[in-house]
């Protein structure tokens, strides 16, 4: 009788399974443990994490490390992935032409058209034309209102106002004749004077109608068809806002500019294709299908894509002691997304949605130096350590301990950097594939689309459900259920959408409604995991036909996600496949498959 331990070093976590091996090769699993991986997978730094995990597993068993007869390491799949975002359009305003934003409290209601003038110069103008008054931060609302009232009484026609501070309601309430007022315009000093401008404010709960319609803008400013074509981006940018200003300047223009994002070259076994990143994700993925099976992907040097590819290659080259030139990028996943961007030349810090392409790349090489790690570990713990088997094979053996499965079984390993699939057929033959794009890509998409610029927050949004704090004592969860508290909640959470993270709720700064954030999160997961699940299964399935697989078991960190397994199961229903989260040995859930597989394979060998 002997004690053995299976150890799986993954990109994110290190898992251990400890078992008792009987004389005739019979196995009894005793315990398991999970810790975060120390260092990059495949490096000797991993040893620290492994020792930690072993000690955790041994603790409950009251046996010591030296009681172990053998430690089995996985032959880690040398796959790493990286992600990048390429912006391909941006909105540029040349000369101030538009203010379209959503101050929380604009004043008045309706549409006003007139010539722009500063409050100071108003009364020097003429009384026979309408004016749009610009009110700087130095003038307080009482003074602004009283001067405008004085001007109105003197016969001046004030059609609307553009205000620096958050004073619109206060000013409007003090005017004898109400007008539409847009406030919180950060760069009010940049608003050109002496130009025709239109100010529109919609009623509560409504959005502006005139300034979001190119023909209405044409009507207001008397534009010809050519000029009307040019205001389309303005109208589009103002769509959905509660207030807006359009100013007609002689050379004022707003453009949607396409940014050259570089091209990538897909080298297949027989074909080769070049595709511009700015053509979008669909074009890239179509070309990819076309040249498949892939040998390598190259990116244009000096572009962002090129930079990302270089970095992935470099990391892998360092890891495996190979020249950078020998490392090949073997898969790429492109996803179209929208990125809120500061409008260049804007007056009130407006955002416009630019198009962007998210890219995940994946590199695979011959072998990670696991042998080196095994030797290091052996020195440290004085227990025989061997490299026990190929990761994908071990995972599938471990997954087969899930009650209710049998070959042909496919596993989908949903990780952070890559999505892997393996299939074992009735004869025990195993096929594996590794694809670019997994959890990290989802995080990137959420970060980009919500304009967070905070990867950690995006990670939290990915992993945990949301709620809206409705009063100081209750929150409504995203599924609609209400939770009450006995103690008042932090006032900083009040009225906000919060992420129900492990260490307590995190308030989101964004004014986006909860439903929008949920939609972005779910869309990101679908774009990456559902697409990749199907891509991966097609590659391992007999005759590329997913219908010929009877069972699919999900393993890996992202299989623990609260909605991804459901999404994949929904997508695979039409193929008639039984899909579910693996339950390794009937107790571990989707965890510990590789570690378990290592122990089983070793026992098999002892018997044989």
């Amino acid at each position, binding site marked *: 009788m002997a004690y053995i331990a299976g150890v799986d070093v993954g990109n994110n976590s290190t898992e251990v399974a400890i078992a008792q091996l009987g004389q005739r090769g019979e196995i009894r699993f005793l315990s398991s443990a999970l810790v975060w991986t120390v260092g990059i997978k495949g490096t000797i730094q991993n040893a620290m994490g492994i020792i930690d995990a072993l000690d955790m597993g041994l603790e409950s068993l009251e046996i010591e490390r030296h009681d172990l007869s053998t430690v089995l390491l996985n032959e880690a799949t040398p796959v790493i992935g990286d992600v990048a975002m390429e912006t391909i359009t941006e909105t540029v305003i040349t000369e101030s032409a538009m203010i379209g934003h959503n101050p929380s409290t604009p004043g008045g209601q309706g549409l006003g058209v007139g010539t722009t003038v500063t409050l100071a110069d108003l009364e020097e103008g003429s009384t026979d034309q309408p004016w749009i008054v610009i009110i700087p931060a130095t003038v307080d609302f009482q003074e602004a209102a009283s001067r405008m009232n004085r001007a109105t009484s003197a016969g001046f026609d004030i059609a609307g106002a553009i205000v620096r501070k958050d004073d619109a309601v206060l000013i409007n309430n003090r005017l004898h004749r109400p007008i539409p007022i847009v406030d919180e315009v950060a760069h009010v000093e940049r608003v050109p004077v002496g130009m025709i401008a239109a100010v529109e404010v919609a009623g509560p709960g409504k959005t502006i109608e005139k300034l979001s319609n190119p023909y209405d803008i044409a009507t207001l400013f008397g534009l010809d068809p050519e000029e009307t074509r040019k205001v389309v981006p303005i109208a589009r940018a103002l769509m959905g806002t509660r207030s807006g200003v359009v100013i007609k300047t002689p050379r004022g223009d707003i453009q949607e500019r396409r940014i050259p994002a570089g091209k990538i070259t897909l080298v297949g076994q027989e074909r080769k294709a070049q595709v511009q990143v700015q053509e979008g994700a669909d074009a890239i993925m179509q070309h990819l299908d076309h040249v498949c099976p892939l040998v390598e992907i190259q990116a244009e040097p000096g572009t962002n894509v090129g930079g990302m590819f270089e970095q992935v290659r470099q990391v892998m080259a360092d890891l495996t002691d190979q020249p950078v030139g020998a490392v090949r990028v073997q898969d790429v996943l492109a996803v179209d997304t929208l990125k809120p961007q500061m409008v260049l030349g804007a007056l009130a810090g407006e955002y416009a949605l630019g198009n962007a392409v998210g890219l995940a790349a994946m590199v695979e090489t011959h072998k990670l130096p696991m042998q080196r790690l095994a030797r290091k570990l052996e020195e440290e713990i004085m227990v025989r350590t061997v490299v026990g088997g190929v990761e994908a094979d071990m995972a599938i053996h471990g997954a087969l301990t899930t009650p209710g499965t049998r070959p042909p079984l496919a596993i989908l390993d949903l990780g952070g950097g890559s999505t892997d699939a393996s299939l074992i057929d009735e004869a025990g033959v195993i096929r594996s594939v590794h694809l670019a794009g997994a959890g990290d890509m989802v995080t990137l998409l959420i970060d980009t689309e919500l304009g967070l610029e905070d990867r950690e927050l995006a990670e939290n949004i990915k992993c945990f459900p949301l709620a809206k704090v409705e009063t100081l004592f209750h929150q409504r969860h995203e599924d609609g259920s209400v939770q009450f508290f006995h103690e*008042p909640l932090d006032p*900083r959470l009040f009225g906000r959408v919060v992420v129900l993270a492990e260490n307590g709720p995190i308030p989101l700064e964004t004014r986006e409604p909860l439903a929008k954030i949920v939609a972005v999160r779910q869309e990101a997961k679908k774009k990456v995991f559902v697409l990749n699940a199907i891509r991966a299964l097609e590659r391992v399935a007999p005759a590329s036909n997913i219908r010929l697989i009877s069972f699919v078991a999900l393993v890996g960190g992202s299989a623990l996600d609260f909605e991804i397994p459901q999404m994949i199961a929904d997508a695979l229903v039409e193929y008639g496949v039984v899909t579910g989260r693996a339950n390794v040995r009937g107790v571990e859930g989707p965890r510990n498959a590789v570690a378990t597989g290592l122990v089983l394979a070793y026992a098999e060998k002892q018997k044989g």
Partner: protein
Amino acid sequence: MADAKSSISDEMKPRVWILGGPPVQEEVIAPIFWGLEEEGIPAEFREVVGGSAESLARQAAGRSSLNVGLGIDGTEQRVALHHRDLQAGGPLFSFGPDKLQPVRLRQLGRNAARLVKGDPLVFQNEDVVGTEVQHTSEPSHHQVDELQALIVRIVTELLQKE
């Protein structure tokens, strides 16, 4: 001045009540009103016999059909914002003479309105109750600067007298 005996229907009109103990200065009340007005929530001021800002705010919140009230203690120069549901505990915000600038007071009015509307509150920096205590015991750099300026002025005045 005693609380005017107003009719019940008048009392029940939805509004945020602001109760103030004398001497309540116009410079303190006005910015609070403006904050509420910009957010579109009605408010009304009543002068009462007196009490701490906190207890007045609590009374005001209890009286308001919007459940939100403000208290001003003219003697101590303190203001507080309370919610009816917080009866057992302290006010949501309260601060004293060192922070009675118009900007802060207007923000207090805004937050009273936002509390009614269920909109996220606005924070300057450290004005949450709890943390405020810490900050008053440890004067900020800003306060130290003010203090220094004051000392310099007093010293120069004294020197000039001599």
